[in-house]
């Protein structure tokens, strides 16, 4: 099912300020499309590849085997369910998702690939991630606990990055530099990119990465010193700075739910740098 393979870039991603591959879970609902659009913009901004993964939800397959399984359509109609029908519906949905991915990626001029997995949607994405991936998570349907688990799994176990937009956070202005109309406008529509520096060497590395990334995407850069401050204070500072994206070390956040709470409080997505980047020591500035 995979299409063209993403371009593999060499060298340190912190040095180049780049994200190598953007991974996004695919679905056909509006929120998933928003996430895909965001993923495509991110990929286009940093010349990364785009990987779309459609996850066949194990829960739905299990459900369809139950004797009283029913589906209530969006119009309120109640229908019977069985496993074969559910699988057919998922295949059709996967194909639709693939077409949407292809169109969005083509319009954004990014290379793309498509995969189908089976499991729990967020958990499957997180467990399948590898260190060169940046996982896009648009928290909406999933519970906070599910999101937290997925973020932890991706950043700490798979050592990947996660770009998380909490429920209620607008993403349309993030990485919106590629629009020709926006370029014609009198005012720049790109909001600043803020890096959280908690004073450690990891924080320094994170700041350098964020500054380089800001330069690449043409966004203003803000550095927020976080030593001794609670995440809520940092979120307020980021909101005051009008940040369109916050870059932070995943390790700095403690609780599984902290990342989603920070994104929601700051009103913008948050890019959590995973263990791979955190392990880099004294990265050189480009």
């Amino acid at each position: 099912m995979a299409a063209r393979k993403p371009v593999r870039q060499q060298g340190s991603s912190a040095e180049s300020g780049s994200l190598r591959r953007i991974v996004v879970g695919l679905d056909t609902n509006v929120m998933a499309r928003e996430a895909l659009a965001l993923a495509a913009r991110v990929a286009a901004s940093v010349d990364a590849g785009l990987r779309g993964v459609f996850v066949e939800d194990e829960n739905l397959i299990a459900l369809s085997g139950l004797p009283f399984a029913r589906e209530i359509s969006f119009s309120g109609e109640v229908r019977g369910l069985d496993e074969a029908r559910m699988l057919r519906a998922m295949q059709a949905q996967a194909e639709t998702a693939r077409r949407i991915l292809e169109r969005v990626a083509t319009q954004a001029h990014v290379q793309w690939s498509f995969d189908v997995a089976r499991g729990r949607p967020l958990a499957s994405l997180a467990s399948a991630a590898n260190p060169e991936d940046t996982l896009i998570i648009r928290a909406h349907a999933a519970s906070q606990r599910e999101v937290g688990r997925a973020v932890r799994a991706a950043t700490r176990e798979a050592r990947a990055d996660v770009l998380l937009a909490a429920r209620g956070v607008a993403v349309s202005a993030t990485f919106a530099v590629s629009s020709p109309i926006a370029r014609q406008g009198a005012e720049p529509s790109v909001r600043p990119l803020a890096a959280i520096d908690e004073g450690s060497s990891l924080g320094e590395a994170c700041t350098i990465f964020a500054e380089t990334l800001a330069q690449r995407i043409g966004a203003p850069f803000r550095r927020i010193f976080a030593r001794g401050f609670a995440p809520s204070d940092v979120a307020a500072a980021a909101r005051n700075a009008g940040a369109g994206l916050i870059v932070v070390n995943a390790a700095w956040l403690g609780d599984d739910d902290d990342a989603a709470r920070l994104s929601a409080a700051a009103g913008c997505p948050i890019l959590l740098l995973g263990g791979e980047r955190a392990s880099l020591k004294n990265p050189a500035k480009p």
Partner: protein
Amino acid sequence: MAVDPLPAQLLYRACDLSPFEFETTAELEDLAGLAGQERVLDALRFGTSIRRHGYNLFVLGPDGAGKHEAVTRFLADIAIRERAPSDWAYVMRFSAPNRPVVLELAAGAGTALKEGMVRLVEDLKITIHGVLESEEYQNRRQTIDEEYRERQEQAFEGLRGRAEEQGVALLRTPAGFALAPVHHGDDRQGEVLKPEEFNALPEAERKRLEGIVQTLQKELAETLEHMPSWEKEHRERVRLLNREVAERIVERAMRDLRQRFDTMPVVRDWLGTVAADLIDNAGLFAANADTAQQQMVPGPSGQLVPIGAINPFRRYEVNVAVANNDAPRKPAVSPWKAEPAVDAGGYIGGGAPIVYEDHPTLQNLVGRVEHVPQMGALITDFTLIKAGSLHRANGGYLLVDALKLLREPLAWEALKRALRRRKIVIESPAEFMSMVSTVTLEPDPIPLDLKVLLFGERYLYYMLSNADPEFGELFKVAADFEDVLDRESENDLLYARFLAGLARAEDILPLDRSGVARVIERASRLAEDAEKLTTAVRPIADLLREADFIARSKDASLITAFHIDTAVEAQVARADRMRERSLEMITRDIIMIDTEGECVGQVNGLSVLSMGAVSFGRPSRITARVRMGLGSARVLDIEREVDLGGPIHSKGVLILSGYLSATFLPEIPFSMSASLVFEQSYGGIDGDSASSAELYALISALAEVPIAQGFAVTGSVNQLGEVQAIGGVNDKIEGFFDICMRRGLTGDQGVLIPAANVKHLMLRQDVVDAVERGVFAVYPVETIEEGVELLMDMPAGTRGPDGKFTEGSVYAKAEARLAAFADNQRRFAQRVDDNGKR
């Protein structure tokens, strides 16, 4: 009674050069008006000045008379003083897209509106997009979206909470939602029970879970029923937000445009609807690449189409159907060329438009609505409305050839309908014939105020007058072109100025006086009258162009009589094949024509053969035979019997019977049967110009007096024996002369023509020369008796006091023969048969 041959000077009227005070036509001014066409000028002045319904014009006259050029020249003079008419533009009627609005704008304003709208849309693309991407707008929009989502979430969260409390999860399926029992309180919390796990549960537990799921399903279905109304409410809130944001931007962006068109109420009103539509559809300007394909927008015809399938901003375009301007009309437009002055695509310039529709189909006249294929269907919108010549000529003059118009299906009726209704309604021929039933447009009609000038030959005018009652109502003014003008010194000078103008316009070398004189003489020959000049422009213009070519090839700086003569000879030579073949057939005796000797009951008649633009004279042998008849004077016209004779020819033959009956044996019943035939004639014959020849042949046969075959005869005759004028006299004389010339002129050869035709003689120089040398003759004949004496070299005879013709005369012999026929008839009638019956 002897008739003298005509002197050479009466055979050709040379142009008198003495009134010409110029050396070349370069010294002469162009002719301002139409020479000899005062009646046409009056009609044109009247028809174009009167602003009443139905006063359109029909310009009638022969082909090649220069009608188009003359009328165009006349119109160009008056149109330039008239006001440039309005521009007309089709635009979207937002409330009913299938009925585009037509806007009347001041001349030149159509393009300004079109450009203004393009600028407006481009401005709004930037400004609205910028505002919609602004933080302020995004926050407000996000708030609305979030409230909508929260409302949904709350509804689902409540349900989800109650479900989770009971060990059931609310799941999203590909096509809706579902409820399923899940693990809880263990490390597999949230996972749906697999069928085998569920089946392993105690029955009571299974039933409990099923009951819970069924109850929750009902609640879920009720919740989902509210969703459409929430969605609608959400969309309305977004629309109001967009509206609030867009109102100010649109108002500011349209300020200049509205000011510019504030004095045009129709445009002002339409711009008001544009503003409202822009505000309602501000979202169009926010659409970006990510969402373009997913959004449905109102299409140009009102239907919903995906963004990207068509340009959604087409609805704000302006389709300028007619664009006029006040720029001055180009000076020095040739009065002799229709094309530069009248553009088939629409004449635009200061003043009223003059449009010549060269291809007057229904759609070229009234315009059309084009369609384009899209996703397998033919669709259209107001931008695909194409103006017709009625649109472009509106406020001015439309020139159409009547014959072309009548040949086009539905076009004549459509033109009349437009003139009668005084408005242009775009009609599709396919719809008329119920050939298509695709979605189409009903554009607003455009008020029509113009003069239509139809061009055609006279027969068309009279045919339309008789056959179409509406024609007279709609084309009340006839501008009838004179075919000829009098050949007088004054007109010769006017003609010279006409030639001067033509030469200048066509970049032809000037003519010297001899050249002018020769063209005038040629114009006289074309008019078939030594006292008239043709008004036909085309043949004269052609002659000048060809003479110019010859003169230039000889490095001459002026066109002289020699160049004109050479050009005429070349014209004749190019079209000479048929004439040459005809002469050859006679000289090789395949067609039998005697030009010497004498013969009873046989005469050379003359006819003109016309094939297209070529015509030439040719002799034909006419023979007559007589015998005793059955108590009447019956002349059998063999041509008529076999349907080769036309009605006029038959009439001429019947007249002969009248003449014979009145001339011979007035007291005794006639007993003669005669037959007449054009020998070796296999085509149709019509006209009565051979009737005098036929009469000579009859009299010769009757009197048994031979006719000299060196003569040929033309002329019609009446019952009184008077010879009447005929047409084509020059061609006929030259046709017989050519035969005699080829066989060798004997000095006894000549042609008898009606005396009334003498004024028409404009013969070729070689004929004139032969007459001058006395080797050929042309005799003007007034009566049959004169002709009889010439042809039979014997007195015709007059009836004396004794009631008898002169002794020994032709008529005496004829009457004696007729008397013998009558006597024989009487005796034959009294004969008794074997049974004693008479």
